[in-house]
């Protein structure tokens, strides 16, 4: 989503002064003026689309992401992934209505919001939230629900990095800490009223920075701190069910339309553009990954095809509202190229056991997308950028946004992991890991033998 005008009232108030004065003068014909100036409209088409979009983001998380990840781990750990994804999502959604929404979207300073809407204080059925079209509003409950799922899925993305070895309680505690000190400020900076990064002009339509880079770096730090899985490199750790992974990838694709086109907040041509771009970038990314593997290794894999889809989706996320369809194809294909490197070349360099390639796909894909948004938004490349849009300038801004996110989220993650480690320990025991988290942490096994 673009920086949200929801509480953007401070300077706005000044801008309204002339109108208000005029309003005084026109008190003789008040009704006509009020109608012309501001009468907020809630369109049921928007509500229908935003409710649908919200449930699509839930669909992305459970069962989508849960299956995408769950299929990739060994059979003895699949339930641990499923419960982590579902519980982290649930936890964050609850924290969201407790304090998250207020801190992310309340008007505070450039870095964080305020405590005005703790526990949704003051929000009622009649409360309205802004969209990007002035006078077009949404019931605030819709906006709260939509945004809660963004926070929820971001937390859930991280668990892929330290999969198959982290303690369940540690996952939950880390998630709460990271959500509070990394997600909320960065969301505020990018989307909140008066947010620092929004002020700089960072383009991030649907959350490439806030969601993907943010989660990617948190995962990477976790992979380092939690350490590699027992037996890595000696024992086979092949995915236990790639059909599940494919279902997951497909549901991510389907649900991502809510994520991306929903971020437009209205069911209009803007949503349609974001929608088409999301479709095309993913298709191009699938073809690109399949082609690269086919050329390089002689065989194209289904896992590559599924990974390509996710890479394309991540890549187009920040760009989907501002680039054109041909730009979307390019971004999708290039995101695949970069992520292929992210999960192979770069992975070998980093030497972290980022088990399910959260950084390789979401981190790298997110960075690629954020940068390319600064390129393909240019009108000359089919984008919707204004006449004075400068690619070089925008690239600088995008890079700054990426850098700040990497730094902020990386630092918070580091401290959060260390704290959790000090309090309870991050990892399960060696034998428990061998036997599998399903039985040792959750007391059950996924499949009848």
């Amino acid at each position: 989503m673009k920086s949200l005008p929801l509480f953007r009232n401070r300077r706005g108030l000044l801008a309204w002064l002339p109108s208000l004065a005029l309003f005084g003068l026109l008190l003789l014909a008040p009704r006509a003026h009020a109608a012309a100036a501001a009468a907020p409209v809630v369109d049921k088409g928007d509500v229908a689309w935003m409710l649908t979009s919200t449930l699509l983001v839930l669909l992305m998380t459970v069962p989508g992401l849960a299956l995408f990840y769950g299929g990739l781990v060994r059979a003895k750990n699949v339930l641990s992934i499923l419960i982590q994804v579902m519980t982290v999502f649930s936890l964050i959604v609850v924290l969201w209505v407790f304090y998250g929404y207020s801190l992310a979207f309340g008007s505070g300073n450039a870095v964080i919001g305020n405590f005005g809407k703790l526990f949704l204080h003051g929000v009622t059925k009649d409360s309205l939230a802004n969209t990007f079209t002035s006078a077009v509003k949404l019931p605030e409950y819709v906006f709260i629900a939509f945004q809660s799922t963004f926070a929820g899925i971001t937390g859930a993305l991280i668990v892929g990095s330290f999969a198959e070895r982290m303690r369940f309680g540690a996952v939950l505690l880390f998630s709460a800490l990271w959500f509070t000190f990394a997600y909320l400020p960065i969301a505020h900076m990018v989307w909140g009223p008066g947010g620092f990064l929004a002020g700089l002009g960072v383009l991030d339509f649907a959350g490439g920075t806030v969601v993907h880079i943010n989660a990617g770096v948190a995962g990477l730090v976790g992979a380092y701190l939690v350490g590699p899985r027992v037996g890595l490199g000696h024992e086979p750790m092949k995915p236990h069910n790639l059909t599940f992974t494919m279902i997951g990838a497909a549901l991510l694709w389907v649900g991502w339309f809510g994520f991306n086109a929903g971020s437009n907040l209205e069911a209009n041509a803007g949503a349609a553009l974001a929608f088409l771009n999301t479709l095309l970038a993913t298709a191009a990314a699938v073809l690109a990954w399949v082609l690269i593997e086919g050329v390089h290794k002689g065989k194209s894999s289904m896992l590559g095809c599924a990974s390509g889809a996710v890479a394309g989706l991540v890549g187009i996320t920040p760009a989907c509202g501002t680039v054109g369809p041909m730009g979307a194809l390019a971004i999708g294909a290039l995101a695949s190229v970069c992520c292929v490197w992210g999960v192979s070349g770069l992975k070998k360099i980093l030497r972290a056991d980022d088990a399910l390639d959260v950084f390789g796909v979401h981190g790298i894909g997110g960075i690629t997308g954020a940068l390319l948004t600064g390129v393909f938004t240019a009108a000359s490349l089919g984008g919707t950028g204004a006449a004075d849009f400068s690619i070089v300038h925008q690239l600088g801004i995008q890079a700054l946004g990426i850098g700040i996110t990497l730094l902020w989220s990386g630092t918070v993650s580091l401290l959060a992991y260390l704290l959790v480690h000090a309090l309870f320990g991050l990892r399960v025991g060696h034998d428990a890991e061998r036997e599998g988290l399903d039985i040792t942490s959750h007391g059950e096994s996924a499949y009848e033998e």
Partner: protein
Amino acid sequence: MKLISCIIRPHKLDDVREALTIAGVSGITVSEVHGFGRQKGHTELYRGAEYVVDFLPKLKLEVVVEDSLLETTLEAVQQSAKTGAIGDGKIFVSTVDTAIRIRTGELDADAL
């Protein structure tokens, strides 16, 4: 009595079962196994991670027969399980001391 253990290719099961039935064998017990031998495996690649898979899917058939039926049975398996390519599998014969049919308590030859 002899226990004949045969490691065969999975797709040969029906042929072998038929041949064994014709040879007069009254029962077979089959397990899914993985075999390592001369037949080369393959490499699997999952994103960045490569796994060399040496173990190939095979079936193990276990048949207990009276000594008198041994030759015919071995012949039947050899004929029906053979494709001529590496990996066709092996037959191992060993001695069984006693056989019991659980349902009736019948012993040895009567139990088969």
